[in-house]
């Protein structure tokens, strides 16, 4: 049993309307000092076995084909300790 985390964010050049809306709201809510907010997705994947290289390769493929839309998003995969 191991947990792998896949973080998916919009590519930097792609407009992130959600992040922008949050950033615009912050000053009104009394939070200052934030220059940018970007919102993405976090997937927690519980593996039945160990997070060995084979399993990670599988998760990377999963991220590439299913979890992220690589036309507009990028992803990172890491084992959570």
């Amino acid at each position, binding site marked *: 049993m191991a947990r792998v985390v896949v973080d998916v964010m919009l590519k930097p050049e792609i407009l992130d309307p959600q992040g922008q809306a949050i950033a615009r709201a912050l000053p009104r*809510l009394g939070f200052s000092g934030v220059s940018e907010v970007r919102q993405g997705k976090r997937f927690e994947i519980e593996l039945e076995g160990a997070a060995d290289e084979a399993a990670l390769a599988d998760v990377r493929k999963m991220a590439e084909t299913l979890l992220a839309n690589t036309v507009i998003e990028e992803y990172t995969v890491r084992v959570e300790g």
Partner: protein
Amino acid sequence: MSAARVGVVTFPGTLDDQDAARAVRLAGAEAVSLWHGDHDLKGVDAVFLPGGFSYGDYLRCGAISRFAPLMEELIPAAKSGLPVLGTCNGFQILCEAHLLPGALTRNASLHYVCRDQRIKVESATTTWTSAFEPGQELVLPIKHGEGRYVASADTLEALEANGQVVFRYVGGNPNGSLNDIAGISNETGTIVGLMPHPEHAVEDLVGAPSTDGLGFFTSILKKLVNV
């Protein structure tokens, strides 16, 4: 006697405000526009928080709106008894503002759904439902992507025990709501939130194939006149 005044709130991204105001007028009350950016409830007798995508529903539905200047006035007023009805996005805002318990989450189907929905009146004692009979079935449109009501087991139990479940879906739960919950109220029944849209069911010609939504407005009028 002057007509009862029902405030209709507009946030950036509110969509059903015009519909809500029309429904209020059709019921014989005066609709008063309230602007999210004002610290002013304009002395209204009741407030309607209509549906839409306030702030684009970014982050979470209703999450940003509940911090609006107007909400700073509305939240204490509602807590001290000002009747408030929130439909769809309005319901979501009421939950985010903790005026109602629980939260509304992504539909189990993961799709936005627009359809004519049967619901059952579970409580006819709230300020907004007294014109109905308990057990009465209504047909109202639903149109939302995040209407699945969730709450902790304790909260659910309390809601059920106190008769705060006001409406339940019948003939199929459209979004996976716990206990088929379509709408709830606060403990005193002055604040009601529901996902279906009464304001789209007040005329024969347009909207859903029913005028069941009128009951919400006659309920509040009856209440305001009796006060």
